[in-house]
């Protein structure tokens, strides 16, 4: 029956095409296929509104996690879906590198060029930012009350010993937005100090989640109390009734969410129409829905936002103070992901133990520790906050090359597995030594 229907539709389409004016014949195709990692709450309203505006075009949404989406697009290049719609900037970079995206210059006017310190659109024109989000701290109010914890306000608060075992984050290798935040900290504070901060917060982490949504999910349940998350996770959970709050720290990063047209898209016109719809006043308005809660990139949309809605173009806290060098970031992208996993994700227990020993010793040593104890503690803190590679090495082509696809004729300084084995061993050794030093300092009081 569907076949008959399809035939009838085809016939009708042919008749219309024959009779229609050229302008009508150039309208969007009858469907647009979108691969997305966004939740239903976001995709459904957009799909419905778009279909209302373009009644002849059906939106087909394929929900996949980011990795499955990238793999799917890569494996189906002979007849791919039309659009990739996701947060993760790294996924778009990978697709771009593999020549799986096509250039598209949106016609929409009045879109900001930059949000915070990041460009909204890909400088090469392969993907387009349609919304922005800021990183911040989400916490479960019941959990904090039960554990007598004050709500953390700043990133540095998360280093405090009282939060040990109460904080969660997603791994930068698993979440492109977390990656940007990590990179921002490293660029903002400098390599050594930045890693010091990350590792000290790492000492308090209860978990490094393998998916972005794992963090808000755990905070919502009260599995742990505090999550380092992107704003809409916190805000939409609150809107859904969970006892959670979200706060931006004084300095935060703003990251864009993107859409890109896939190379050789079958429904080119419809895909373009969808991108334009996202950027239109109508589309941007949908972002303000309490269950979506993303920051529009169209400046005029902010005239209609409810009071208290974050505005990254007015509010100086949101990202403006951070300087972000995209070239530095790109060169060491894969390396940072791997390094974070070696020294934090996979050695979390050891890292927790080292910082616990340090914090215990600090508490017991009091205000006037002996000179020997002070020296030992300084050493311990240095070891527990150090990574086994310098900033210069991290940008060295020969080393970063080991973490990228090996091209013929390109010589890397070693295999990824060799670096990873060495870093893992160094992390284990450092944390064990730091723990021992802190214990010795306590004995030398």
């Amino acid at each position, binding site marked *: 029956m569907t076949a008959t229907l399809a035939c009838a539709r085809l016939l009708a389409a042919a008749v219309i095409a024959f009779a229609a004016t050229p302008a009508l014949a150039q309208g969007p195709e009858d469907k647009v296929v979108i691969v997305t990692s*966004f*939740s239903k*709450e*976001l995709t459904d309203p957009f799909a419905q509104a778009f279909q209302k505006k373009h009644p002849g075009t059906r939106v*087909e949404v*394929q*929900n*996949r*996690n*980011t*990795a*499955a989406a*990238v*793999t*799917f697009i890569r*494996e*189906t290049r*002979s007849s791919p879906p039309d659009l990739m719609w996701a947060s*993760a900037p*790294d996924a778009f*970079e*990978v697709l771009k590198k593999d020549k799986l995206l096509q250039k598209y210059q949106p016609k929409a006017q009045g879109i900001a060029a930059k949000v915070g310190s990041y460009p909204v659109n890909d400088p090469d024109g392969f993907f387009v930012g349609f919304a922005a989000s800021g990183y911040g701290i989400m916490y*479960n109010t*019941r*959990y904090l009350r039960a554990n007598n914890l004050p709500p953390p306000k700043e990133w540095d608060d998360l280093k405090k010993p009282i939060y040990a075992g109460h904080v969660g984050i997603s791994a930068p*290798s*698993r979440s*492109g937005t977390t990656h940007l935040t990590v990179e921002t900290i490293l660029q903002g504070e400098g390599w050594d100090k930045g890693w010091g901060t990350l590792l000290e917060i790492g000492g308090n982490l209860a978990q*490094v989640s*393998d998916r972005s*949504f794992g963090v808000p*999910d*755990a905070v*919502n*349940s*009260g*599995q*742990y109390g505090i999550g380092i998350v992107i704003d809409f*996770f916190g805000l*939409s959970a609150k*809107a*859904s*009734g969970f006892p959670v709050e979200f706060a931006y720290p004084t300095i935060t990063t703003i990251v864009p969410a993107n859409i890109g047209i896939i190379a050789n898209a079958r429904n080119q016109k419809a895909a373009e129409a969808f991108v334009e719809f996202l950027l239109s006043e109508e589309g941007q308005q949908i972002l303000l829905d309490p*269950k979506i809660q993303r920051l529009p990139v169209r400046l005029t949309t902010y005239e209609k936002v409810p009071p208290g809605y974050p505005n990254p173009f007015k509010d100086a806290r949101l990202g403006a103070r951070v300087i972000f060098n995209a070239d530095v970031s790109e060169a060491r992208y*894969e390396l940072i*992901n791997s390094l974070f996993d*070696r020294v934090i994700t*996979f050695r979390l227990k050891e890292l927790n133990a080292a910082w616990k020993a340090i914090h215990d010793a600090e508490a017991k040593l009091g205000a006037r520790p002996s000179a020997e104890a002070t020296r030992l503690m300084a050493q311990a803190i240095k070891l527990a906050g150090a990574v086994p590679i310098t900033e210069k090495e991290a940008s060295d082509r020969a080393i970063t090359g080991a*973490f*990228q*696809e*090996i091209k*013929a004729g390109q010589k890397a300084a070693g*295999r*990824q*597995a*060799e670096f*990873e*084995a060495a870093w*893992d061993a160094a992390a284990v050794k450092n944390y064990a030594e730091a723990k021992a030093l802190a214990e010795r300092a306590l004995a030398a009081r």
Partner: protein
Amino acid sequence: MSSLPTIAAPPPSLAVRLGASPAQVVALAAIALFLLAFLIIPIVRVIVVAFTGPDGFTLVHFGDFFATGLLREAFWNSIYVGVMTVVVASLIAVPLATILSRFRFRGAALIHTLGVVPLVMPPFVGAVAMQLIYGRNGAINLLLLDWFGFRIPFMDGLNGVIFVEALHYFPFILLNLSASLANIDSAMEESAQNLGAHGFTLFSRIVFPLALPGYVAGAALVFVKVFDDLATPLLLNVTNMLAPQAYLKITSVGITDPMGYVISVIMIICSLGGMALAGLALKGRDFATQQRGGGGLARRSLGPAGNAIAAVFVVLVLLLVLSPHIGIFLLSIATVWSFAVLPDGYTLAHYATIFREAAPLISNTVLYCGLAGLIDVILGGMLAYLVLRTRLPGRRLVEQVAMSAVAVPGLVLGIGLLRTYYDVKLPFTGEPLATFWFMLVIAYAVRRLPYALSAATAALQQLHVSLEEAAENLGAGKLTTLNRIVVPLIVGGLLAGFVTSFATAAVELSATLLLVARAPDAPLAYGIYVYMQSAAGRGPGAALGVIAVVVVAVATYLAYRVAERERGLKARELL
């Protein structure tokens, strides 16, 4: 153990000496072809990178594996967790199976059904429910903390993984052992009793040894499944095991080093090793008995005290193993459930939300998983028969290839199928074969073939070949013998295979997420995934999870009723 009861040494039968009939050769070739097309070629196309260096073939990546401390640690952790889970799962499953098969116990059908439900852990929802019940701040620990001021780390580290895995996978042992116990003839038991064996002696010397094939099949499956399981370590955030290490490499965007595939290859080898070890444990022993039609062991009355003890045990175990499912149910009717023993309030709104979408998701799940289970039972049954009853060359190899599927990550198979069959277009519609819904059936079937295969093998090991010879001597053809003798007598094992395949396929996510191309083709697991990506979707996602559990429970119950009727028809009146 030397006193294993053997009725007769198997005489070299005519059929066996002659090798095999043409039909059997064709059957083996067909199975081999199926595996080649939908397992070997797709997998090899993906994992070839594990053996590829800048200058072509290399084994250097395997050297890297063993040179990395983290990965060596992961390797031993996986083995440790696998072995310990078998022990813990046995503690749950062996008493349950014994009570069910040896005693007249009311509600046995219900327990058989509920015994399968733990296999159905809907993706994400199951994880959230487990954390809300057993987690650090789950219901039980919040109560303990309130009343006694301490917590029990159920879900911490490797021991947490063992705890959750045992609750999750003990049905493998329960199902296979029950099927095996049901195949033991009561005459065996009666003879032993006449000779003065009772109680534990009877159990340890007669019943358990005779049921060993089923137990070993189940235990081996538990080991390899746990060894390769990804969901539980991820749920507990334990990353220093092999499966999560492979997964994190393979699914991270932008990671290009081959270590993920190297780990996959090592996992496949280890799983085959585990299976081979299990085979070795049974080697040189004969479990077959000739008597048939007794309808299994005599079911004894327990007496009031025994009944009460058994009932308490069964209820406690079921409460323990079904608590995640109770949690999922609560989640599906909860308004908000956060850092509390129970939800804040209750609502049916989540069911209303999914009401319209649920019907196609359910029918797709039943269709896909039913077909996959059927394919598995047919292929697994045929292959088990060919391996045990013929001397066809290559039959062991085909068996091992089929078994290796248990260790293949769903994602790797998904990528392979997509890579191999996306450019193969269907006639008429021009749709790529890879994203046609039947490919999901195949993906499910391939990965679960080992369950049906080992269940069928265990059942067939208990069936003495002389029964088939007798039938043939009486003039029955091979097909008639198969139809009238073999299949009816191993139907319990086949059923166990079907149920495990069906139940686990119903919640498979990784391959599903890659191969579903259109929402109308999607099964329940996809629907759950889509909801569980946002805070507001937790309730509706849980509601879909409940539906998945109910679908599997109903299917299992129906399958069990059918098997019981078969059994009832055969059973002779004993009392």
